[in-house]
């Protein structure tokens, strides 16, 4: 690797080097795009278990008497229904309904919340939250990103792997729930969250950065009998894409609402307590969405890619947000924004690949759903 010296390193950086990762500049972070190869890594996670360094993700705590009222104003989902240990996927919006970021909120107690935000948006998000916090004197927002290492263990054999390292009974931890102050691999005070970005069962483990390499090695040892491999960002992207999980900057951005991105099931447009962007979303519901995300498969030979144009009868109607060869389906698939009138299963349009229109057909999402 050359010219990567100026990049930020995660606490697991030495593991990328030791395990032969191909380190690249990922939004200012030195992270591996792949270890053994994207296709092999993708398959390992679908069939066995893979380990990801995701310490570039941002974390923040929101505590205090006004934690819930603050968060209710901040995000578009109604958090009043959460119970302790539960996690909600939600969105912070701009007043115009565009998305500041998508995030995970864990409730540990009625005045105690833990947020996981996107690496590329972390600084912007914290600024956005602290600005809003001025209206809530009894809430404290703390950016703990630099004090937090995050490793993701994903795949059908993730529970068997992690259970070898903790006395906590993982069968008690439901999907989208978390437990904190757990000992993992002899490391005290870890958080285990049953979440992920792959469409598989699995966990995200949060710990002190000083213990990150110890945790990494312990997980690799525990997973050896199950065929565990380290997984890079390339497979992380193909895995989340097949599972139709959005990526900020592609399916979501400051000009796109979660409703347009097909994430309405995570939004409470009519939440009784107002949130930033609520009026804009109500207007989108009343007047119809400006655009709608669809999933499609290529009919002609070719791979759709981010920002390729979508056309119908020679007229541009939208653009591709993510496109790729799908390793699990062995087909070329994509997501695209198109007008609502075109967003019907079976509808066909063209994706413009190197100036040539190639036929594509809208199909059902998610492209991939694991068998439970």
């Amino acid at each position, binding site marked *: 690797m050359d010219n990567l010296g100026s990049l930020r390193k995660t606490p697991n950086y030495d593991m990328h080097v030791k395990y032969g990762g191909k380190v690249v500049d990922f939004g200012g972070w030195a992270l591996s*795009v*792949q270890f053994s190869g994207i*296709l092999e890594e993708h398959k390992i996670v679908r069939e066995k278990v893979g380990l990801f360094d995701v310490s570039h993700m941002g974390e923040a705590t929101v505590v205090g008497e006004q934690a819930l009222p603050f968060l209710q104003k901040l995000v578009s989902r109604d958090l009043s229904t959460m119970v302790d240990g539960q996690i909600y996927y939600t969105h912070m919006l701009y007043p115009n309904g565009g998305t500041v970021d998508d995030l995970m909120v864990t409730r540990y107690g009625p005045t105690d919340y833990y947020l996981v935000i996107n690496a590329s948006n972390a600084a912007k998000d914290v600024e956005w939250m602290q600005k809003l916090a001025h209206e809530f004197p009894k809430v404290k927002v703390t950016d703990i990103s630099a004090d937090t290492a995050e490793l993701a263990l994903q795949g059908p054999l993730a529970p068997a792997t992690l259970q070898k390292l903790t006395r906590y009974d993982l069968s008690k931890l439901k999907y989208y729930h978390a437990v904190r102050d757990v000992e993992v691999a002899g490391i005290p005070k870890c958080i285990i969250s049953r979440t992920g970005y792959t469409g598989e069962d699995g966990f995200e483990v949060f710990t002190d950065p000083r213990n990150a390499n110890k945790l990494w090695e312990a997980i690799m040892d525990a997973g050896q009998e199950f065929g565990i491999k380290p997984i890079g960002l390339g497979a992380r992207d193909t895995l989340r894409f097949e599972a139709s999980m959005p990526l900020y900057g592609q399916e979501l951005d400051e000009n796109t609402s979660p409703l347009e991105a097909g994430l309405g099931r995570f939004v409470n447009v009519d939440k009784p307590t107002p949130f930033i962007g609520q009026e804009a979303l109500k207007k989108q519901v009343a007047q119809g969405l400006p655009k709608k995300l669809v999933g499609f498969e290529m009919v002609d030979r*070719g*791979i759709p890619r981010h920002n390729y144009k979508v056309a119908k009868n020679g007229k541009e109607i939208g653009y591709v947000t993510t496109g790729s*060869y799908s390793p699990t389906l062995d087909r070329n698939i994509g997501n695209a924004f198109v007008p609502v009138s075109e967003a019907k299963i079976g509808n066909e349009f063209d994706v413009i690949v190197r100036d040539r229109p190639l036929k594509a057909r809208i199909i059902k999402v998610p492209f991939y759903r694991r068998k439970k």
Partner: protein
Amino acid sequence: MAYPKDFKYTKTHEYIKVNGKEGVVGLTNYAQHELGDIVFVELPVVGKVFKQNDVFAVVESVKAVSDCYAPAGGKVVKVNEKLVEDPSLVNKDPHGDGWIMVLEIANPADVNGLMDVATYEKFESEAGSHH
């Protein structure tokens, strides 16, 4: 992987293996390694005429789209149809079964200007992140 001694090489990591008036063209081991898992090859059309350094094919890995540049000018006389069903041949055997096209070379001087194996091996090793 050793580079064949009888090939000529470009700075953009294509090779050409000359057989009389024809040349077999493909990507070098370095190129396939840098690209990663190749999942699509857009082959040229037989009969098409290229000038030296024209884009003659597009190779796509999971994450990257990469143009391939003609090592010499000429007419395409044959393409490797096997790559339609199995693009990974470019990864598995870049200098053999992973060839892309056969070119009827228009101007032999184009080939003379390319790198020989010793020069390419040095060029490749200086190109960086190969380990």
